[in-house]
């Protein structure tokens, strides 16, 4: 258990590796080299579960590896507890890490793998036995203790990897995309296991993933990253409800948020209205207040609306018109890919309460109209920044 604090942390890869990193994303390149992580500031509380999330190449794994000590820090400071760990080797940081590839020692049995870190730390034999058995019990791998990793399935191997990490009772438990190598079903199952595990062990978690569902379900707070820069830090609900910019809005939430070009208008009475291709929506009181506080002038904006917040409009009523291009039947809902205002967006329609429309009408090629509430829209300026903040 410990607080972790990252202050102005930066990682620069010298120019020799420019090609390798430059091709992956739009990372900033300076004379010094490629900036894989820029000005990273984060205070992680004791026993907090923090999730670093972002597309591949955004610097989340690099940040985690810097905390682990596997990657040198180019600038800034990292504290674990009160201790500055910049120059402390990984073995002395009192951390444990779970890798995407499991990284089990193939020549040791499951028991050997789990005992290994304890033996290195000269824990008494009795204590080692107790801790290994306890961890195996928690993870349900007791019966595999004498097997070699190659005789285990992916899910079991990942459990062993987690077991090896938790027997140490580390101050901080780092997880680098631990579920990415598992199939969808197993991933869901392991996600639930991690939530349960988290309740049973008292430690600080730092978890890296590119999967926003994992981020939303696991994290106390999530850190959304892009091109080595933090985009937003907040609780999953905060990030979902109040995305700071268009990138976060698009990245968090499945299916992705729909974006339309729109115009922000201010009526003579000071009320903000947004106009999307002739369909006008009055913004909610809260949004009006935020925009007024920020002194937002009328302008061209990008309107964002989540697929689950869009409603089908009854026939012949006002709304945005669009043509259905793909209809995905999910059982309880239909995901309609609708081309409106020259952009494709997704609308989730619950099949149980269709507003005076037959399900058969929601087929490819048909015209529909849809509406959304002024409470649930998000407005982004030209630079992608959320106008409310």
């Amino acid at each position, binding site marked *: 258990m410990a607080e972790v604090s990252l202050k102005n942390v930066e990682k620069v890869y010298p120019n020799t590796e420019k090609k390798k990193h430059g091709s992956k994303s739009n990372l900033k390149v300076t004379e010094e080299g490629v900036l894989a992580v820029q000005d990273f500031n984060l205070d992680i509380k004791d026993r907090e579960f923090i999730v670093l999330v972002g597309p591949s190449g955004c610097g989340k794994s690099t940040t985690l590896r810097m905390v682990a000590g596997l990657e040198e820090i180019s600038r800034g400071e990292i504290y674990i507890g009160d201790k500055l760990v910049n120059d402390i080797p990984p*073995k002395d940081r009192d951390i444990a890490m779970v890798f995407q*590839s499991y990284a089990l020692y*193939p020549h040791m049995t499951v028991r050997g793998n789990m005992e290994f870190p304890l033996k*290195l730390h000269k824990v008494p034999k009795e204590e080692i036995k107790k801790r290994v058995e306890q961890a195996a019990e928690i993870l349900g791998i007791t019966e595999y203790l004498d097997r070699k990793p190659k005789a285990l399935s992916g899910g079991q191997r990942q459990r062993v990897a987690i077991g090896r990490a938790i027997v140490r009772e580390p101050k901080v438990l780092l997880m680098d995309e631990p579920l990415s190598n598992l199939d969808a079903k197993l991933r869901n199952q392991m996600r639930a296991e991690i939530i349960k595990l988290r309740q049973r062990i008292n430690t600080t978690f730092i978890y890296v993933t590119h999967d926003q569902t994992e981020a939303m379900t696991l994290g106390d707070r999530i850190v959304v990253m892009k091109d080595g820069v933090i985009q937003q830090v907040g609780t999953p609900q905060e990030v979902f409800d109040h995305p700071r910019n268009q990138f976060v809005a698009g990245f968090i939430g499945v299916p992705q948020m729909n974006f339309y070009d729109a115009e922000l208008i201010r009526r003579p009475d000071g009320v903000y209205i947004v106009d999307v291709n002739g369909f006008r929506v009055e913004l909610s009181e809260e949004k009006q207040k935020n925009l007024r506080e920020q002194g937002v002038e009328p302008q061209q904006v990008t309107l964002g609306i989540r697929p689950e917040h869009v409603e089908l409009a009854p026939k012949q009523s006002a709304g945005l018109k669009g043509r259905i291009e793909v209809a995905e039947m999910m059982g309880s809902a239909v995901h309609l890919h609708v081309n409106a205002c020259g952009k494709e967006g997704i609308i989730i329609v619950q099949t149980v309460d269709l507003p005076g429309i037959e399900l058969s009408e929601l087929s490819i090629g048909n015209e529909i109209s849809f509406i959304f509430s002024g409470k649930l829209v998000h407005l982004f300026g030209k630079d992608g920044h959320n106008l409310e903040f």
Partner: protein
Amino acid sequence: MRKQARRQGRLWSIVMTIISVIYMYPIFMVLMNSLKVESAISTGTAFDLPTEETFAGLANYENAIGTQGFLASLFYTVFITVTSVCAILIFCSMFAWYITRVHTKVTKALYLLCAFSMVVPFQMVMFTLSSMADTLKLNTPWVLWVIYLGFGAGLAVFMFCGFMKSVPVDIEEASMIDGCNPLQTYFHIVLPLLRPTMISVAILEAMWIWNDYLLPTLILDINKYRTISMLIQFFRGSYGRVEMGPMMACIMLAILPIIIIYLIGQKYIIKGVVAGAVKG
């Protein structure tokens, strides 16, 4: 189609059998002559099978072991082979681990240097080497491993690097986080993973060092120290007289251990040589 494939298979079997016979025949001939009396081994009779009159039993073997100090030679050969192979395994695997994991211009150059050393023929360096060995007092069996380490490094590093590239670096990083320093990572994690490659490198290097004639002849004082391959020459007496029977017996004794080692470890050679060639 299947008939054609079967016919082709049969043809290959015949060709390969002929080739194996060609390869095996000299060894068979040596074995056969080692069991004949001295007078029955001449240019004209060398190819004859032993008869009742010419069969000598194990007399040649007794002679080979008893007269020219075979046991001392065996000891030197075993000592040189074991020390050299151990040195090659330890130093080269550590070196290969380092140059595979640390990417700098220097490590790249060192790797190329090792690969290059494999194509330089021994004859090119042998005279300078022997005088250097004299100067540095490396001309005894006790330190000959230093020279063998130099010559064996090329192939060994090349093979170890091939395997190391296929080992995910995550495993080593995990060990570092678990509490290992680099030396512990090497001995606890890397070394056990390298075992199959170690065995194949050991066999290949042991075969070469055991059978090597030129290098020990040039470097060691032949009157003091003789390896088995040097000893074989000692059955050549003065005035061109050669004790063919004991010589053949000595050759058989020399190749026997290495054949046994090879047969035991041959499956590892294939594994080791192709390790890292394909992504597993």
